[in-house]
């Protein structure tokens, strides 16, 4: 290998790197994080009020036409181990082995303001629709499961047992909202541990509860100031949480205020904005190939492999 070859190559690699780096750095500032629509609705779940009766789990099944999951109970009663292909809402129990600290936790889609799953979905089977609800349309779903890969809360589940599997996730009972009803879970909760409403109202209510009872509520980790989980996490979510134990214990990840898809989409758009870069690159590549081919055709075939190079 001649030094010239390597130098050319290094130059090429360096140039690619520079282009890639600038492509990444500049638009990262440019990508505008999505904001909640003014009519955004959601849930507020206050773990300190929940008694773990699981009425909401049953109501969710009825509202969404999902059969009880009796796999763990040997066919006897509804006992989902977690969210799964037939369970869109579940109550879990957290118990600290070393202290009396315990709490229930309601798991369902948080309806991110700037959701990673929606950014991931190839044909937009997952989309943010009316009231900011993240909805699912199986007609456009190939079952690639990229949404599962990117969700920081592990919400979308897959019907692994089926031959024509779909993604299953809470859609905030949007079919019931259209009929003027509430979501199944909030309608039946006997303690109003989970309530439904406009996100702005829910956030105000959550903050009021913290102000009223600052000692009762917790933050992300032990010792952190109390917070409303979902106000800013991962760019904010429409379903909000209050808890009397640290959120990390409940399995809610420590996310910054940056939307989950922010960096990846800034990179993606940085490279592909208006298809300018690919088209420009294609033009350059085409021109270089054309020129090199011409050169080789014109050159006498004496050069090493030269004649062959152009005559493909």
């Amino acid at each position, binding site marked *: 290998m001649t030094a010239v070859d390597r130098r050319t190559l290094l130059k090429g690699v360096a140039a690619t790197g520079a282009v890639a780096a600038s492509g990444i750095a500049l638009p990262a500032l440019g990508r505008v994080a999505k904001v909640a629509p003014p009519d955004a609705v959601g849930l507020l779940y206050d773990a300190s009020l929940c008694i773990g009766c699981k009425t909401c789990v049953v109501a969710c099944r009825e509202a969404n036409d999902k059969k009880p999951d009796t796999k763990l109970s040997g066919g006897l009663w509804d006992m989902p181990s977690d969210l799964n292909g037939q369970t869109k809402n579940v109550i879990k129990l957290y118990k600290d082995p070393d202290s009396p600290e315990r709490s229930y936790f309601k798991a369902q889609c948080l309806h991110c303001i700037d959701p*990673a799953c929606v950014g991931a*979905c*190839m044909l937009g089977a997952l989309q943010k629709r009316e009231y900011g609800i993240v909805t699912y349309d199986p007609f456009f779903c190939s079952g690639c499961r990229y949404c599962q890969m*990117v969700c920081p809360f592990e919400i979308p589940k897959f019907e692994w047992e089926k031959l024509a599997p779909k993604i299953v996730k809470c859609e905030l009972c949007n079919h019931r909202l259209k009929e003027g009803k509430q979501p199944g879970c909030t309608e039946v909760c006997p303690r109003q541990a989970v309530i439904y409403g406009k996100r702005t109202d829910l956030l105000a209510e959550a903050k009021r509860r913290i102000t009223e009872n600052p000692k009762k509520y917790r933050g992300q980790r032990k010792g952190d100031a109390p917070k409303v989980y979902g106000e800013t996490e991962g760019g904010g979510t429409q379903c909000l949480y209050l808890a009397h134990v640290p959120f990390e214990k409940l399995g809610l990840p420590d996310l910054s205020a940056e939307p989950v898809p922010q960096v990846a989409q800034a990179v993606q758009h940085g490279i592909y904005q208006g298809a300018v870069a690919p088209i420009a690159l294609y033009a350059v590549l085409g021109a270089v190939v054309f020129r*090199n081919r011409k050169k080789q055709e014109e050159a006498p075939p004496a050069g090493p492999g030269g004649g062959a190079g152009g005559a493909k």
Partner: protein
Amino acid sequence: MSAHAHLHAPVGGPLWTRPFRILVGVFAFCALFFVYRFAAGLGASTALNDGYPWGIWIAFDVVVGTALGCGGYAVALLVYILNRGTYHPLVRPALLTSALGYTMAAVAIHFDVGRPWLLLRVPIFPHHWNLDSALLEVALCVMTYIAVLWLEISPAFMEKWREGPPGFLRRTSEKAAPIVDKALPWLIALGLLLPTMHQSSLGTVMLLTGTKLHPLWSTPLLPLLFLVSCLGMGFAVVVFESALSSGVLGRQRETPMLASLAGIMVPVLAVFSVIRFVDLGLRGKLGLLGTFDLYTGMFLIETLLFLAPAFMLLSPKARNDAGNLFRAAMVMILGGAVYRLDAYIVAFRPGSRFAYFPSFAEMMVSLGVVALEVILYVVIVKHFPILSAPGAEAAVRPARA
């Protein structure tokens, strides 16, 4: 055109040799699992779960598989952009492995997705394209690239058919050959653009998993790292394949040419490692290497696998040693494969509730896809002018003096 005919020739010889029969037997066994996957569904046939929705069918068959299919990309870059005509005899074999590798990745995708019959909707519903999705970009690019690759390699088929008995193939070849020849520069350019796009996007795909991907891997430079690694793997595959075909199919060794090719691999490998460490430093994550866990271990193994071949190929003398060259290419392929498997599976952390290790059926399906690829490769090189013709070697002197 006539100059070209001397360059490539069918290998010929009997097809049903003993190794080939074994290969077909392996494929037949694996094909049982192809059926099983569709009869039993993903839940029964795979170890995939809601935490690890992607397993080896994506990480190995597609992400590693297409990188192994980058031989055509890497050589085309040399021959047509850096204008190194010397490497021209390597173009056709590299294009064939690329075409087969990418086609097999597309086959594997149909096993992996839950609703494969709906994949067809991806290209035909442009008004539903989610332009935010890196995966959509990968899907569209790969589909187009497969078509481009087969068109690029089509002159090899037409060369044979034009000399064959009169009939449909001969008539079509006579008509199509000049058209393809005219379109070739634009196809070649497309064949360079598309892998640049989707190989980098394979990195962006994992960037979207955010904090679930270990910080040693998750960086905005993922697209660049995936691009560089596919080039390194592409070059290595060409070396590997050429050495293998000379060993198994009894072709003349192309060592001088491969040696100079290996010289290019050295900076590519070095660049990859440098980018990684500089990036870690800039992101302030170098400290992570101080903790001894699975992730640090895998990161160090990757780094070793990338740097080892660079050192193995440092001197011209070492590059001209056929055995050493072959070993270095193997290490490099392994390094790239480990990097990609790590970025897609090992460094992906959905939480301790979940675990994944591929099921037997998953492994058999992956093996079956590879077996099918090798079968098709052998059949094609035996019947069509793909590999460099015996004697052509003498006419093609290496660029290095």
